[in-house]
């Protein structure tokens, strides 16, 4: 299991479009991927509802955990970008 920690840069936090892109990127991993707020319970990073439910705001730290390092890197890039692009 690999792990990455990143500060969410988008103004809206991990909501709306950034959340959708995040979940779609996580879905590219064959195995399990989780996301947690610092000190919080990890949730399924492929679940839009679980990710929205975390209510991650701009400037908060999240930790992603999973086997697929490429997917983790993609998630870190998305969460760390002020205006994530791509689909």
């Amino acid at each position, binding site marked *: 299991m690999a792990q990455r920690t990143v500060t969410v840069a988008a103004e809206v936090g991990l909501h709306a479009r950034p959340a*959708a892109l995040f979940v779609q990127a996580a879905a590219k991993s064959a195995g399990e991927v989780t996301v947690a707020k610092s000190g919080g319970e990890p949730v399924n990073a492929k679940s839009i509802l679980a990710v929205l439910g975390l209510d991650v705001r701009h400037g908060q730290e999240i930790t992603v955990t999973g086997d697929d390092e490429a997917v983790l890197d993609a998630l870190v890039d998305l969460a760390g970008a002020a205006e994530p692009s791509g689909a």
Partner: protein
Amino acid sequence: MTSVDLRGTPVSAGIGYGPVVTLAAAVPVPPEGERHAGDAEAEIARAAQALATTADTLEARGERAGGPARDVLSAQALMARDPSLADGVAERVRAGTSAPRAVYEAFGAFRELLAGAGEYLAGRVADLDDVRDRTIAHLLGVPMPGVPEDRTEPFVLAARDLAPADTALLDPGTVLAFVTEQGGPTSHTAIIARSMGVPAVVACPGAADLAAGTLVLVDGTTGLVRTEPDPAEAERARLAGQALRAAASAVTGAGRTADGHEVPLLANVGGPKDVPMAVEQGAEGVGLYRTEFLFLDRETAPSEEEQVAAYAEVLNAFPGGRVVVRVLDAGADKPLAFLPAPDAEPNPALGVRGARMLERHPDVLTGQLRALARAAEGTSAKLMVMAPMITDAEEGRRFVAACRAAGLTGDAGVMVEVPAAALRAADLAAEVDFFSLGTNDLTQYTCAADREVGALNRLQDPWRPAVLDLVALTASGAGGKSCGVCGEAAADPVLACVLVGLGVTSLSMGAASLPLVRLALSRHTYDQCVRAAAAARAATTPDGARSAARGELPGLAEVGL
């Protein structure tokens, strides 16, 4: 047919008149305890098929609609494809629950999660409910909820609430107005209505019960929804609405009377989300920044960093303008987990709230003031900070001292909403830098009429001469210091002129009301406002005050105000 008046929150200005179209009947709730026939795997496949079809439909609608609607609809499609949700459904079906009921319950678990997690997410609950209802409709073989899709004649859309899928394909040319029973200024209905330029009234009790075909007149500026109005009256209202919009859009720039007496026109905002509309409507700054949104629905106070960001975002939107921030206004009626009320209070409005609550929790106040001081660094906006529910000069002095101790160098002022503060405004003015009259609470306390008690509507009228007297006392007690109004009273174009005549120096209101208030002021001299104020105070009833003031303000009728 009898005409009935409904009232709600106006969220998109303008007048709409036409027949009501209602959304298709709500999808039934599958009964609790409903079981499937026994083949769990087939039942799971049925549910999965319904979820997939729902996702495909939402995506296709998003593609057709384009623009911001596409993002919303594709987010909804993601919800329908959510693996955790599918797991929740499968688990319940394996335990014997029918597919429709399992879908209902699995959505319910996430619904609670989102509804409990703050203002932004509460807005997504309607989106989630819509996905659930569409999926259940597939499973039950009943019609999809939503707007009839074959409608081409213009109509007023009435509903309990509207989801993005209901509104994505609406043609602004055929929708005359929106009226919903639920929702608020940040609800999907409000956002879409403003972006379509269609009048809308939300939080309007009775809206969901309007029968299809009923003719309604919707006033998105006042919040009035009148059923079966006199057709001639309705046509006049519609034309007047058009003329008024044209007249209002012709008056731009800073608020001032016809003879150039300046009255800054400011916006009331509940967070950064309200700023774009305020800027769009020409607000010269913010007269009331309610900071409660940062504190609601959470277990602990927000961090200083989080607060700094939320304050700076609003300050940066008004370079050179003023931004008046009200510190946390919590109390027994708006309880917060980390600010426990001392005891059960028989009269919450008369209890430990506002500044009284913050004096019991100085750490929360200090944290907020420090965050404000940091946010003010590096912006050109003029930050002004005020305390709610101040009763006397001693409280005012303590608040100003707390501001200075936290490093705030700008103006520190107080809300005047308690009659004792209005009566002794001169004492307060000696201690603080400015006043802001909260006319809603001032009216409630002056007339001893709880705002939450509908039966006392008659007493909750800011046109009451007793309230006008207290406004005049406060303005004169201010002794040249700034004395604004940030209650609903400022949003009434007629009363706005009277307030200026009473000595009020700025007016702050929901952004949608700014154009008409700007127009009303531009059509009268300062002397006319003073005469209107004197006439209103000479009356003995609210209606008497209204008509006496109008008698001195001839420019209102000329533009149909």
